[in-house]
């Protein structure tokens, strides 16, 4: 087993691209998502008309919007299409009318928050006071979804590299040669898990430390529990990679499995809140290891759960590991007549 672990580590170190894919690319993608989903300095422009001076003044005090007077005779739609403003607001007897170009979460929440706050500053009793059990209302989308990114990235990278590496072992006939040596099937599977596990440990630790100290992601719980969960996710990714490559004849066929194996898991990872899904589709999440991984990570990073509270998720991941381990043994044994 040690020689297989040794070999995998050497192979990855010789292949600088794979090494970068495991260690550098996740950090780059995290940074990119941080920049995309983090705090936006964009000031939304709001054009107003038919508005009481008192409300207009209150609106002007809101820092997230820039208020201008709509001074053209164009319709509201054309005015926005021209790019003169992001939103047009007017007050009528049947309420406040807001016209915007399209459903844009960032601009929409800026406008509605500004209007809401402006009105409540005039009439404090109408103020909405929203608080959350976990997290704060001023957290960014990145704070909210960062944990998903950690597990999805780690799962995806390790799956690709281990799957391709094992399918290569088959297409290049090295597996046949390996099977002619006295090495045990279980050592091959364990060797693969430990070899890629080695990189998974480095990767998860790097990603966690990077998001905590560089990107300052909201981090309520203990980072080592998060690392353990990410490691379990990576082990599942290695074994899923081996299983898929047994069913594939070429590297391309491994890639063909991504839309079937990886993409649905991302959908069910918590990106869309699972408990609001229609048609009892939420049951599907129970067969997806990434769901448990993401829920566990959410528990640690956002809810600050301790190890005991997270244990059910860890236990579920371990069950997946056991099932995959047995199927891997059976799959690899297929290449041996003994």
């Amino acid at each position, binding site marked *: 087993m*040690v*020689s297989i672990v*040794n*070999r995998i580590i*050497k*192979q990855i170190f*010789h*292949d600088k691209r794979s090494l970068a894919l495991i260690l550098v690319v996740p950090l780059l993608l995290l940074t990119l998502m941080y920049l995309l989903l983090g705090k936006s300095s964009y000031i939304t422009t709001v054009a107003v008309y038919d508005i009481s001076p008192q409300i207009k003044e209150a609106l002007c005090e809101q820092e997230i919007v820039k208020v201008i007077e709509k001074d053209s005779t164009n319709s509201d739609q054309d005015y926005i299409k021209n790019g003169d403003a992001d939103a047009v607001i007017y007050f009528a007897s049947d309420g406040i009318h807001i016209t915007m170009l399209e459903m844009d979460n960032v601009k929409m929440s800026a406008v509605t928050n500004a209007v809401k706050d402006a009105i409540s500053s005039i009439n404090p009793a109408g103020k909405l006071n929203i608080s959350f059990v976990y997290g704060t209302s001023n957290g960014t989308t990145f704070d909210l979804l960062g944990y998903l990114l950690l597990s999805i990235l780690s799962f995806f990278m390790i799956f690709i590299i281990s799957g391709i590496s094992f399918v290569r072992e088959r297409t*290049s*006939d*090295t597996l*046949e*040669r*390996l*099977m*002619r*040596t*006295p*090495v045990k099937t279980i050592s091959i599977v364990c060797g693969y898990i430990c070899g890629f596990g080695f990189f998974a440990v480095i990767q998860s630790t790097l990603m966690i430390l990077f998001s905590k100290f560089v990107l300052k992601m909201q981090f309520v719980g203990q980072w080592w529990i998060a690392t353990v969960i990410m490691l379990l996710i990576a082990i599942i990714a290695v074994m899923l990679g081996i299983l898929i490559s047994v069913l594939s004849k070429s590297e391309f066929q491994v890639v063909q499995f991504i839309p079937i194996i990886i993409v649905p898991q991302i959908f069910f990872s918590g990106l869309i809140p699972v408990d609001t899904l229609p048609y009892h589709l939420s049951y599907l999440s129970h067969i997806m290891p990434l769901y448990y991984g993401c829920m566990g990570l959410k528990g640690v990073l956002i809810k600050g759960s301790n190890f005991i509270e997270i244990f059910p998720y860890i236990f579920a991941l371990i069950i997946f590991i056991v099932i995959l381990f047995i199927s891997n043994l059976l799959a690899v044994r297929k290449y041996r*007549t*003994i």
Partner: protein
Amino acid sequence: MINTVEIKVNNVSKSFNKKAVVSDISLTIRGGEIVCLLGPSGAGKTTLIRLIIGALKADSGEIIFNDMKIPNTKLMSELGYMPQNDALYNDLTAVENLAFFGRLYGIKSEILKGRIDDVLKIMNLSEDKNKLVLNFSGGMKKRLSLAIALLHNPKVLLLDEPTVGIDPILRQTIWEQFHSLRDNGTSIIVTTHVMDEAIKCDRTALIYEGRLIFDDKTEKLIARTPGGNIEELFFMAKERQYNG
């Protein structure tokens, strides 16, 4: 400790998708003998080799090493196998490839280094030993693949087209090496589709469309082909098939 290994192939057949690839072949390879499996591409040579090493299970018949029936885990460390593809890790160096397989065969680390140097020297790869296989030429890969098969001093060597793409001078030294291994009691099975290789073997088994059509000393085979052209034999076999 096994000194020499005699391999008996008894009435072995194997088909893929109902197409017979090896039909009822019986063959004995005595200890310390080089036997050549000669036949055109697609004749079933590789399948026969894979049956002998136990990579495939025969549909019927049996293969016996001395008195042990294969597949058998104990025999694995006595077998040296070189597949037709190079079966190398491209992202490792030559030494790392050798060290990896050496350890899997359980060669002790104090001996391993010396053995690696030996086989590299035989294959004339000593200068390139720390290069990644990725940068090797086709012939160099073939030599490294052969070096791996020799590494653990196996008593039986099964080599699938071992000298294709190797230059004539080096091919000469490799064959000298095979002969000296044979003289030390190693049984060697080599597949080829060219006569030049066959004449260096003690015995030739001619395989055509999955059947064994000739199995005797190589000199006798040469005597039967007046033109020295192996293709004549295949034509003769084909004619015999049509006539009866």
